[in-house]
């Protein structure tokens, strides 16, 4: 029961969905739509399990007075507050002036945007640390990055403005992006496609069963 049922479900659902792709008939299309909707619905129920885990973790820190437990109070309070705002008002998401959207706008999004902006710093420090001509490979990586960087900003063409058109940084950058970059992408895509294919097959056939965990 504990292994056979899940493995059967995986095989039946997987094989059906794989062949469904080739059958445009409306019955097949309808089942496909339902099957996908069901995964979303199951995902929402699982979110409850996830939220349970989040609450459990922080409640544990607070009740055991673990190091920095005070911050866990912040998390739980914020969670309770936001959930209340979201669930009590039926059209909180449709009303830009609702408190829920205000929280989104002035609390959530500044943090998101600033986290994202940290990348400007990290991209610089990573470049400084890692772009060193230690090996041929590292040198290729570095040169191609530097040329494309220069090709993207006006200053690159200021430096090479004396060269004939077609030889400037922006042109070389374009060329690298259009050709070697496409070749690299294509090789990786084909490899990934095959890797995904094999892994999906292993799941469907029940060879890959780490997700089942233990038990009999």
């Amino acid at each position, binding site marked *: 029961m504990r292994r056979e049922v899940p493995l059967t479900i995986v095989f039946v659902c997987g094989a059906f969905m794989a062949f469904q792709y080739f059958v445009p008939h*409306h019955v097949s299309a309808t089942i496909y739509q339902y099957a996908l909707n069901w995964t979303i619905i199951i995902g929402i129920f699982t979110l409850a*399990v996830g939220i349970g885990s989040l609450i*459990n973790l922080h409640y544990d820190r607070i009740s055991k007075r673990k190091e920095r437990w005070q911050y866990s109070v912040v998390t739980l309070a914020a969670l309770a507050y936001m959930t209340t705002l979201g669930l009590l008002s039926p059209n909180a998401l449709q009303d830009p002036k609702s408190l829920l959207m205000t929280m989104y706008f002035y609390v959530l999004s500044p943090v998101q945007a600033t986290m994202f902006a940290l990348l400007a710093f990290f991209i610089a420090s990573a470049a400084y640390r890692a772009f060193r001509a230690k090996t041929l490979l590292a040198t290729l990586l570095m040169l191609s990055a530097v040329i494309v960087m220069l090709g993207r900003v006006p200053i690159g063409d200021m430096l090479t403005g004396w060269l004939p058109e077609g030889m400037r940084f922006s042109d070389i950058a374009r060329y690298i992006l259009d050709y070697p970059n496409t070749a690299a992408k294509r090789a990786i895509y084909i490899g990934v496609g095959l890797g995904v294919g*094999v892994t999906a097959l292993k799941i469907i056939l029940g060879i890959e069963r780490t997700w089942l965990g233990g038990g009999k």
Partner: protein
Amino acid sequence: MRVAPQIPKAACFLFFIAVTAAQQPSGESVDSAPVTPETTSLYGDLAPGSPEGVTAEDQPNDPGSAIIVRWNLAPGDNDKDSLVSGYLVYRSESTDGDFALISSLPTGSTEFTDSGDHLINGNRYFYKVASVYPADTLFSAVSDAAVPRPQFFHTRRLMVFIFMLLFSGTTVAFIIQAKKGRKLYVRPIAGINAVDDAIGRATEMGKPILFVPGLGDASKVATIAAFTILARVAKKVAEYQTRIIVPNYDPVVMTICQEVVKEAYSSAGRPDAFDPKDVYFVTQDQFPYTAAVNGTMLRERPATNFYMGMFYAESLILAETGFVSGSIQIAGTDQLIQIPFFVVACDYTLMGEELYAASAYLSQEPQQLGTLKAQDWGKVAAVALMIAGIIVYLLSTGGGNSFTTWVMGG
């Protein structure tokens, strides 16, 4: 509301009225008798005419309930004369019945797809197209009967179907061979050997290991590959009695990660050492999640960080913070755009396909290794197909074009 087909360009007032008319749910019936133009001088030397060659047929490779109507441009519908201001399409269930206006299209249109639940599969439908001139509307002859039908096989996906069957067959064949005990050679991959070393290092230092399963949900195959790597890492961790921390972005991924780690601990004989609170859910939001993982890195100071699965812009934020906290870092992702950032900032990176290979490698089961062989044969087949396409081009350019279109499918 029924969504209109893509219409490239139209700015004519007449057309505008027509659109408004088309939205009347009932649709007006129209007199089908051709109108004789009275003011021919309006059009210069050109005689206005109705659209010729109107055909209607079932749309191929569809779920049913769709018909494609095609016609030739009416006289004067070209850049030079631009006399025609649009076309009107009418439908009826009998040749002599009431034809209802179903759509109006701008100049230059030669095709319209009539689709929706109002078309009953198996019924017969007839179409008429009218060309709209400034003073006249001229109707075409009635098309032959078209019958919408659903199809059972998508012919434009034949190539993929063949490839999928061959590929699955090869995979199964290699698995069977491996089960029978045939030795299959697979070359060592640097990043994968590093996984074991990194776990060893963490245990020597007595520090925890951080495993980040990425931002993919459990439906992403990259995430599924990450589970296998997690199983291997967790087992080692359990054996060496260190700690593994798995912060999660997706709740389904979290439940599976919990199962995987729990199983690893019990197979190492230490089921009680597993703390479910170490495999926890953070939030399903990219940057808040990243902020939390960053904090965990700096506070727990893990000896090794694993990033396996789907990653987006946060890849470099995580990897740089991990570097600052002094961890060894091993990444694996099939997200093309993020591979460079991991390559730059991590000690080892499993690039694209290597992520999938790693999950087979680390399991150390012969049948898993067999699937790597299938992947290799897939590559050989891909290159062979590529070369075949180029050879067809050498034989004839037209043949090459149609072969490529056939392979590409739809």
